[in-house]
């Protein structure tokens, strides 16, 4: 065994009364891809932030190339050869792509000033290596999440890091891009770098990694050689128990048409979208990231306007670009970004849970404090939201509990139709199955559900019908029986292949 590039043992970190990390232990060898898995709240992100120099551990031993270190800041970590790609791209929207890659270490030219030409050329070289067509001179604002993630990767590569940490880098990437990322990761491994790879997708973990470290509840559990373990074993260690089927499917009576979307179109975003969702039915909207799924859902719900077509709900035409009308009619929308769209993080649990009810809680325009409290208590209790008090800010809750608050606030409106956009993204396995069971439960009660998901097993497991989108169009409508990974993938990429 060669000397580890990086080793952290027994690291601890607390925030006020919350212990984010009790025993963070990881060891990365040169030339290995090391996967780190664990449920949300297991302490993975905290551990990454300690390695990145963002957090100072309260305790623990930390060595880089056998020398003990204590990073004061991110710059120290960088200087030690550690580079991080975060889950969410962190680009500077006002700067050019090239500058985003080289910020803080721009190539210099005459008089020690920054040379834009050299910087542009270096960026081009990087993109050529990654095989992506991105203009280095455009500003980063408006780039798709996938492109942003690619720029993050280019940035990390250009750092020539000894240790590259990738915190869920694939969440927003399409298959091609994931594959390209893996190629890059493998070539870096050949070059002797150590890579720490964090993902919730076991297929990726098993496809890419050499070793896997499991964490649970802020503690190190075990490290395995990938070839020697199975998914089930890893999951057991992550959860600390056996879990049932991930995607429960329960039968429900399919009723009348609840939502009827006719020829919906928005210039440059989607065209010709027509579909129906019936009571008790779960319809999945599948496709690659950027295919226009979320955009369709937003237009249906009235967040964004549409240019043509119509949305009918329970037989009545719904007002365009008016979410309140959609809510009043009986729609709900659990958005993909819980922290930015689903919740108001600094407001209390109670306020968040009743935000959708604010109009119905008011009598003569004045909100009844008692009714508000009762509603909040009722729905957080029903969904078993764990919180010390209804008055705590929702940001103090764990991710799973936050998602429950989002669901609670929509279920409180007793909707007839619910849009759920990536309902289990970034949620640990335990809560994930809980969410699936809940959705299935809701369908059984006659609620129509439109589910957007990038996880194929989730789509196949949950949906009664699958709509596949590609480049702003619906390319296939598949019944449960016809939906297989092959048919869905074919529809999601068909026209792309056809164009070549």
């Amino acid at each position, binding site marked *: 065994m060669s000397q580890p590039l990086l080793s952290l*043992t*027994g690291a*601890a970190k*607390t925030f*006020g*009364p*919350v*212990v984010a990390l*009790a025993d963070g232990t990881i060891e990365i060898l040169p030339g290995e891809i090391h996967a780190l898995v664990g449920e949300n*709240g297991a302490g993975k992100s905290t551990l990454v932030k300690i390695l990145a120099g963002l957090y100072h551990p309260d*305790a*623990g*031993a*930390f060595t880089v190339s056998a020398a*003990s270190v*204590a990073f004061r800041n991110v710059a120290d970590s960088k200087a030690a050869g550690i580079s991080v790609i975060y889950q969410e791209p962190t680009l500077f929207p006002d700067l050019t792509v090239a500058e985003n890659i080289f910020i803080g270490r721009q190539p210099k030219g005459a008089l020690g000033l920054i040379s834009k030409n050299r910087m542009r050329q270096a960026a081009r070289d990087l993109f050529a290596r990654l095989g992506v067509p991105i203009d280095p001179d455009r500003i980063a604002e408006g780039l798709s999440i996938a492109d942003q993630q690619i720029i993050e990767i280019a940035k990390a590569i250009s750092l020539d890091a000894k240790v590259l940490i990738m915190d869920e880098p694939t969440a927003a990437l399409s298959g091609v891009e994931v594959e390209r990322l893996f190629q890059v990761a493998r070539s870096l491994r050949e070059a002797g770098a150590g890579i720490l790879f964090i993902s919730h997708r076991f297929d990726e973990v098993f496809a890419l990694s050499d070793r896997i470290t499991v964490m649970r*509840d*802020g503690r190190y559990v075990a490290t395995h050689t990938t070839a020697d373990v199975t998914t089930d074993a890893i999951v057991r260690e992550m*959860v*600390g*128990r056996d879990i049932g089927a991930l995607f429960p499917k329960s039968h429900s009576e399919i009723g009348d048409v609840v939502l009827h979307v006719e020829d919906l179109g928005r210039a440059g975003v989607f065209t010709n979208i027509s579909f129906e969702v019936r009571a008790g039915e779960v319809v999945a909207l599948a496709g690659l990231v950027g295919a226009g799924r979320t955009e369709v859902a937003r237009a249906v719900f009235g*967040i964004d306007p549409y240019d043509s077509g119509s949305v009918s709900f329970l037989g009545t035409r719904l007002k365009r670009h*008016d*979410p309140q009308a959609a*809510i*009043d009619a009986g729609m709900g*929308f659990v958005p993909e970004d819980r922290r*930015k*769209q*689903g*919740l*108001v*993080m*600094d*407001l209390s649990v109670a*306020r968040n849970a*009743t*935000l959708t009810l*604010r*109009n119905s*809680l*008011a009598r003569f*325009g*004045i*909100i009844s404090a008692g009714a508000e409290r009762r509603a909040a208590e009722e729905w957080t209790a029903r969904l*078993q939201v*764990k*919180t*010390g*008090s209804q*008055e*705590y*800010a929702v940001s*103090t*809750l*764990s991710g799973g509990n936050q998602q429950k608050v989002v669901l609670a606030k929509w279920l409180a409106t007793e909707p007839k139709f619910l849009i759920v956009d990536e309902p289990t993204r970034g949620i640990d396995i*335990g809560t994930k*199955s*809980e969410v699936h*069971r809940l959705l299935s439960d809701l369908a059984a009660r006659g609620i129509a559900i439109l589910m957007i998901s990038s996880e194929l097993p989730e789509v196949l497991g949950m949906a009664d019908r699958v709509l596949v989108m590609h480049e702003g169009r619906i390319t296939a409508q598949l019944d449960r029986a016809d939906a297989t990974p092959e048919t869905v993938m074919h529809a999601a990429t068909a026209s792309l292949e056809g164009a070549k």
Partner: protein
Amino acid sequence: MSDSTRTAAANANANANAAAAPAADTTKTISTLGKGRTGAARILLGRDAIMIYAVVVFVLYACIAIPRFASPVTVGFLLLDVIPVLLIALPMTLVIITGEIDLSVASIAGLTSALMGVLWEAGLDIGTVLVLSLVAGVLAGAFNGFLIAVVGLPSLAVTIGTLALFRGLALVVIGDNAVANFPPELTGLFTSKLGATGIPTVMIGVVVVALFFGVLLHMTPFGRGLYALGFSKEAATFVGIKVNRAKFWLFVGTGSVSALAGIYWTLRYSSARSDNASGLELTVIAAVLLGGVSIFGGKGSIPGVIAGVLLIGTINYALRLGRISDVVLIIVTGTLLIASVVAPSIFAAFTRWQHDRRVRRSLPQAAPRE
């Protein structure tokens, strides 16, 4: 029982495991427990309450230390002085809670005042003059609202522009002139007091406006929406809050109330001039921020803001009575403003530092060495 209860059990289990572990005392809150005060502590130590204590303490101090302060006359003069700031601070609170700002309020008041003078001079009936002036304020606010909510421009930049524009229009309207001959009954009403209490008669109107905005912010669906909007525009959109419409009406609100303040100003001083109320915008914002409203939006309350306005007003009047120069007032205002925002940060940093130290001591020290 279902899987979900099993999850709960598992969580409890996890907690129990953690509790059994070596660093037992600090790990038990690992997953779910948040932080925050509850019950009486929350009421008595809240930001609003502290501001109110500050006002009470200062009033008591002034009563004892400053001769003649304890008098109904004080109440009258003090309130007459703070009314314009108090009025504008109310809608400004709502605007700042949504994360916006309106710097043009004093200019709108000035424009209203100028317009009043010109219309009155032109021989219009006083009722018509008042209505038209108020309409001017509404329009000015709607203009701000249009640029900010409809066109989507940043309010800080827009209202710096309209600050100059509205003051400029005031100059265009009335020029160098000052109109003073308003009906004595009306100007008299604006300086009259409610019997022996010393409370100015116009306070009745101010209380109505304060109640309106207090109820609007704290007890209506609209107000609930504003807090959500202040923290996260996107999250607010998803629950059906009409973000742009709300912002538009808020700016109409500041415009209208600024017009009221302009009318008050004109009639109290019986002088309509283009430079009335100039520079008031910063005083208003200082008072609102001192009252605990976060400049980032999402936090603040009407009671806190009223306390903030009264605190500055009381200190101001006490200094006047003590014949202490305005220089002191300026420095005190600035220091209070900074202290009110810096103190919580410093307090939090101190608590964190203490906590970290405690934790470090309690945990086994394996490393880090330099």
